[in-house]
């Protein structure tokens, strides 16, 4: 059924397209879905991705930038020469596909364990941290005048949001309390420089090929804020997948990433990056607790959600390693 709707939609803007084939849902909750499909064309099929909120799910939840903003950001990144898919079409009401957009499908790998272990990425791994530093710098340098409307975040607001969410669970976690206290005492205040922040720059949202990074995905959490946030978030231990001595995604050093960032003409504040790494570790821990809440109260009664709830203790040990390290 979706193939017919997509076929009609694609025919309205892709010259010569005769339909679509191979539509398959890649992921999806109740309010947002990702589909892969091929546009059928006499010159050869073209891989495409649909990202949409199905009809009836218009509004985006609290922190989300919204699919329209995501489309603008991805296209801006693409136009700036950053690794980002070309946005082919923004859905219109007459497409009857809901809200969202269709983009070029970029081949590659997003699964961290494969990127960190498979032979085909052996040549990419040593260059990735530096490369990603450059990409993050590019994102932070996107032209402010063309950016869509996004929420503006500060460290102070982020701490307050995390604390409110944590308290809402009604479950005492002394290590999270320690982290909240640590963050409040070291809150650097508003950043002197406010830029676009991707907000979720990490494994899973990066398409990697044997040649390195090919695309940055999932701009759902994009916002304006302290650019050091993105550099801290990708260092959170939860994204190292066992390679705990390589802080950047389990493949590189902070220094390599910083070098890539500086080469692209931007400045690094390592202390602030570390502050955001602590914030990010706590944030992921609280997100894990949120998964457990949704498992218990929501319609998605899945084992995966339940088991992610049991990952929050991983962030507790990582917070202790950051805040109360034990000898050498």
């Amino acid at each position, binding site marked *: 059924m979706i193939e017919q709707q997509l076929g009609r939609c694609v025919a309205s803007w892709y010259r010569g397209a005769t339909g679509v084939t191979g539509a398959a849902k890649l992921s999806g909750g109740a309010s947002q879905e990702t589909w892969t499909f091929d546009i059928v064309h006499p010159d050869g099929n073209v891989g495409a991705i649909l990202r949409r909120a199905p009809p009836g799910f218009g509004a985006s939840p609290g922190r989300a930038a919204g699919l329209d903003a995501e489309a603008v950001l991805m296209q801006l990144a693409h136009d700036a020469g950053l690794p980002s898919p070309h946005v082919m079409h923004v859905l219109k009401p007459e497409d009857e596909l809901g809200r969202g957009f269709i983009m070029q499908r970029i081949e590659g790998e997003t699964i961290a364990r494969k990127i960190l272990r498979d032979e085909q990425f052996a040549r990419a791994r040593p260059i990735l941290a530096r490369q990603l530093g450059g990409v993050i710098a590019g994102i932070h340098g996107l032209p402010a005048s063309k950016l869509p409307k996004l929420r503006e975040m500060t460290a102070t607001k982020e701490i307050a949001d995390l604390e409110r969410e944590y308290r809402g669970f009604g479950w005492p976690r002394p290590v999270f309390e*320690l982290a909240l*206290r640590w963050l409040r005492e070291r809150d650097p205040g508003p950043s002197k420089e406010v830029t676009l922040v991707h907000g979720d720059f990490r494994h899973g949202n990066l398409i990697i090929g044997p040649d390195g990074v090919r695309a940055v995905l999932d701009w759902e959490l994009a916002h304006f804020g302290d650019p050091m946030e993105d550099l801290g978030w990708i260092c959170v231990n939860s994204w190292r997948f*066992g390679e705990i001595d390589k802080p950047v995604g389990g493949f590189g050093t902070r220094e390599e990433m910083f070098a890539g960032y500086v080469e692209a003409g931007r400045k690094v504040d390592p202390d602030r990056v570390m502050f955001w790494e602590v914030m990010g570790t706590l944030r992921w821990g609280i997100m894990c607790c949120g998964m457990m809440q949704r498992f218990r109260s929501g319609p998605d009664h899945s084992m995966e959600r339940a088991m992610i709830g049991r990952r929050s*203790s991983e962030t507790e040990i990582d917070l202790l*390693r950051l805040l109360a390290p034990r000898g050498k």
Partner: protein
Amino acid sequence: MQDEPTPIELIKAVADFLRNEITPVIKGHNAFKLRVGINALDLVTRQLALEQGNDAAEAARLKQLLGAGGSLMELNRVLSDKIATGELDLQTPGLAEHLWQTTMDKLAVDQPNYGSYKRELGRS
């Protein structure tokens, strides 16, 4: 008194069956879900084996640290409040050790293969 086998033995038997007999014949997304399910069963057996001892030790440390009694939940609420207000901090004798021990005990149940846990286990 319930008869044998124990819950641990039952769950372990089911997990071993799923792991050894079913895993090889399941493909795709369900293979992933099966792995998550087996992990959940393994976690439950670890918790059944370790929880009583861990909880008793945690309660004893908390009573010492706080100089008060109560359920484990109540004691953790009091500790959380005292950390939030700054009444207790990392300079407080015994606090860091308590948090470390409690967290290590949680990881032993939740994710004994987690990299940070394995590294810290080598220290203690």
